[in-house]
């Protein structure tokens, strides 16, 4: 724990984040290459859905990431509120755009997948609807943060919003599911097991590789973003000035 707190100081974290971002970035690129190769050429054609199902290999990891990132973001926000560490709130805000991006990808690929499967670009399915609401939550977080000029207030206010959001996410999710089962006519039946039950081992592996690629990508991008946030917020401190001096000469 002590080590962690040592790295909670932006000055020590900045160079470390640079090295980590590089490492995770390379790992993510390699995994993504392998994962894409596997999803297009190695994984077999699905007997029910044909080739169209392959979009799952990006859709499912994106949907997982979108939810996970929000929870991780809320954890960072909570840590920032409890220990008043500047770095925690910076981490929270650096994750938000990536989370929103994955949410958008999940929605978009979901629509692309939905057209051949359900015959409609959009259906008011419980998971699609929750995903849409999650996108609103991400956008609210980013909008609030950018509307506040003072970076300290912005970090604290958006952190609180993330916490309020994370308490509400399960409630929203279950209410949307309930709403869906109530209103769902017999016209559209979304059989979730359609893919997964018939999923071969190689499909599972491909999905895992893609998920890890997304994971590493998120970490790498968040670290890059947190580095620029650190520079921006700590612009007046001596270590940043020294760093910039070094970069110029």
């Amino acid at each position: 724990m002590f080590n962690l707190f040592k790295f909670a100081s932006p000055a020590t974290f900045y160079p470390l984040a640079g090295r980590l971002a590089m490492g995770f970035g390379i790992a993510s690129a390699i995994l993504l290459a392998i994962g894409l190769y596997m999803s297009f050429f190695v994984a077999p054609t699905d007997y029910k859905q044909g080739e169209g199902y392959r979009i799952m290999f990006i859709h499912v990891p994106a949907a997982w990431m979108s939810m996970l990132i929000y929870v991780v973001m809320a954890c960072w926000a909570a840590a920032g509120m409890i220990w008043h560490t500047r770095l925690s709130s910076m981490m929270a805000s650096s994750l938000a755009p990536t989370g929103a991006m994955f949410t958008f990808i999940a929605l978009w690929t979901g629509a692309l997948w939905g057209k051949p499967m359900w015959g409609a670009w959009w259906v008011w399915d419980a998971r699609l609807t929750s995903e849409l609401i999650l996108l609103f939550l991400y956008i609210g977080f980013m909008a609030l943060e950018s509307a506040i000029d003072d970076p300290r207030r912005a970090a604290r206010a958006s952190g609180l919003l993330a916490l309020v959001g994370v308490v509400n996410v399960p409630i929203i999710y279950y209410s949307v599911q309930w709403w869906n089962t109530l209103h769902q006519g017999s016209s559209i039946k979304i059989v979730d097991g359609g893919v997964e039950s018939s999923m071969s081992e190689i499909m599972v592996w491909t999905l895992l590789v893609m998920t890890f690629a997304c994971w590493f990508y998120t970490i790498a991008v968040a670290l890059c973003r947190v580095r620029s946030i650190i520079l921006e917020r700590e612009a007046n401190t001596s270590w940043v000035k020294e760093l910039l001096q070094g970069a110029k000469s």
Partner: protein
Amino acid sequence: MLAALRCMVIRDLTLAMRHRSDVLTTVFFFIIVVSLFPLGVGPDAQLLKEMAAGVVWVAALLASMLSLTRLFADDFNDGTLEQLLLVPQPLALIVLGKVLAHWIISGLPLVLMSPLLGLQFGLEGDELIMLMVTLLIGTPVLSLLGAIGAALTLGLRGGGVLVSLLVLPLYIPVLIFGAGAVTASAAGMGADGHLSLMGAILLLALALAPWASAAALRISVE
């Protein structure tokens, strides 16, 4: 403690009474929004009856939100908010008092108006009562959750639009169960499940939202 709560409620109600037009604006907004729907979708009685609960509920969300921006803004601008932060009472209690007053001013009139609007849409008997009951349980939740958004966006440019972006997603469960209860009772299914879930949400909001709003106020007043 209760004396402080009562004092806050009375203070805010007195202020609202000296600005009666603000209260009426919210109610008329509610009525106008509801009345626009038949003009938009056509006078088909069957369709309107099916839509009634959803329309009234969505209008209630919007009306409640319209009045939210003023919940703390006036107190913030004239400096009374910082004085309220400094009284020797739990800030959550002060917030609760303000929220309660806000509900009496902007939520309760909607509840009382709703049967009239329900009639316009062809709802009858039990459905009208159900509409009123759901609004009675649901509108306090709107005020409680809305207070968090209002506190977070205090003094920001474009605060009104921002507040809707932050708060509307949080309103979704109330909307689903509120409108769902009316639809369920119209379809002859019991609405007890909906109502007890709404009650649970109300209790949860009552327990947590004042604290969250209090924390948000401390951040925003700084």
